[in-house]
């Protein structure tokens, strides 16, 4: 049977992709950020996940203002890197896992999650930057990826509790897939950042670290954090952290911390990174 073996959380700042693509990952600015991912790169090379359910948000790339799915799952064979206004990133195409993706989609719908199903879409920095952070610059990505896009742009975005419940349902779906697969779930985005208005540049390291603490062990307090708290405390784009709760919900009642990293700043954003496993 397929199983969720671990969860990874990470920020997905576009500038990290630029640093990778331009070979600047060990310079004075980016070095301390990327050093926090060295452990994970080694760990991923040992773990060799077959499939990653990669929870991210589309930044007006695959979805425009016309169609706004709250939860969308990519069921295609391949996903190309999106052209976000400066040409697509020169990274490998992403290979999907249509069998598992369709299985998860069907299971989630029967489990009361009304998913939007996407056969063809380009994937932006929200998805490709985490792959670069965890796998570096391989000729082909070493795992299949099932994109799971969450609307965190147009309000209301899904509640933290709903995200957590979706994670729980994804776990049930994966565990009912008959093939023996090592599946990881990644929650991306955050941590504190605000990209707009006079308050732009807001960073709240204390809150971010409390949030990371709350995902380790058996607490489920984070699922009850209201949107307004993310917005006041961590900036308008800090709301992306609800996507970490999908990852957390998929890991079951208790988690064990394998690795943790936090750094300010990267561009406008606080970088946070966790590796957890079900305990």
């Amino acid at each position, binding site marked *: 049977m397929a199983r969720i073996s671990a969860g990874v959380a990470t920020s997905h700042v576009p500038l990290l992709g630029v640093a990778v693509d331009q070979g600047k990952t060990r310079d004075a600015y980016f070095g301390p950020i990327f050093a926090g991912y060295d452990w994970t790169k080694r760990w991923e090379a040992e773990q060799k996940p077959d499939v990653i359910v990669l929870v991210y948000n589309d930044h007006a790339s695959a979805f425009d*203002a016309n169609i706004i799915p709250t939860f969308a799952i990519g069921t295609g064979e391949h996903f190309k890197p999106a052209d976000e206004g400066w040409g697509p990133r020169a990274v490998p195409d992403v290979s999907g896992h249509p069998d598992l993706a369709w299985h998860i989609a069907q299971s989630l719908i029967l489990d009361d999650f009304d998913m939007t199903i996407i056969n063809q879409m380009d994937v932006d920095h929200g998805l490709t930057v985490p792959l670069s952070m965890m796998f570096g610059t391989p000729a082909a990505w070493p795992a299949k990826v099932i994109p799971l896009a969450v609307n965190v742009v*147009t309000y209301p975005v899904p509640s933290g509790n709903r995200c957590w419940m979706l994670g729980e349902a994804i776990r049930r779906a994966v565990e009912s897939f008959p093939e023996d697969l090592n599946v990881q779930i990644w929650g991306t985005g955050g941590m504190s950042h605000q990209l707009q208005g*006079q308050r*732009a*540049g807001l960073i709240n390291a204390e*809150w971010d670290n409390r949030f990371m603490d709350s995902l380790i062990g058996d607490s489920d307090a984070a699922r009850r954090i209201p949107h*307004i708290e993310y917005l006041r405390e961590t900036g308008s784009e800090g709301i992306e952290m609800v996507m970490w709760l999908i990852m957390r919900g998929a890991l079951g009642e208790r988690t064990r911390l394998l690795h943790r990293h936090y750094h300010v700043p990267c561009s*406008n954003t606080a970088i946070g990174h966790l590796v957890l496993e079900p305990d």
Partner: protein
Amino acid sequence: MSDKADIQDYLAAFDDIPGTRIYTAKRARQGYHLNQFAMSLMKAENREAWKADEKAYLERWPMSEAQKQAVLARDYSLLLDLGGNIYFLAKVFSTDGLSFVQAVSTMTGMTVEEYQAMMNAGGRSPKGVRSIKDVY
């Protein structure tokens, strides 16, 4: 588990955050064509047409005159007020060759250098800018 919020209270709280415009349905409706214009710049051929004649390119979109003027002026604060969303507007400043830091800093009343220095020193503290009403 559900603690369903009243939609009016939920939305009203957003207006209590200083210097912040949450992208609500109201803004999404007001900014629909503005954001779709910005989205069109994801295609290389559209970027070329836009760069060749910005005013003519804007005529393709049923945007308000105020929105068009704000785009031409790259007034991102005003564009947010007119329904623009930062991830859509990013296509405009990316086409101009600006980074997020460069574009975002224009909304803060700081120079790019001052803004970058603030970020490198740990970013803007949330102290005093969490709430207009309660100032904490």
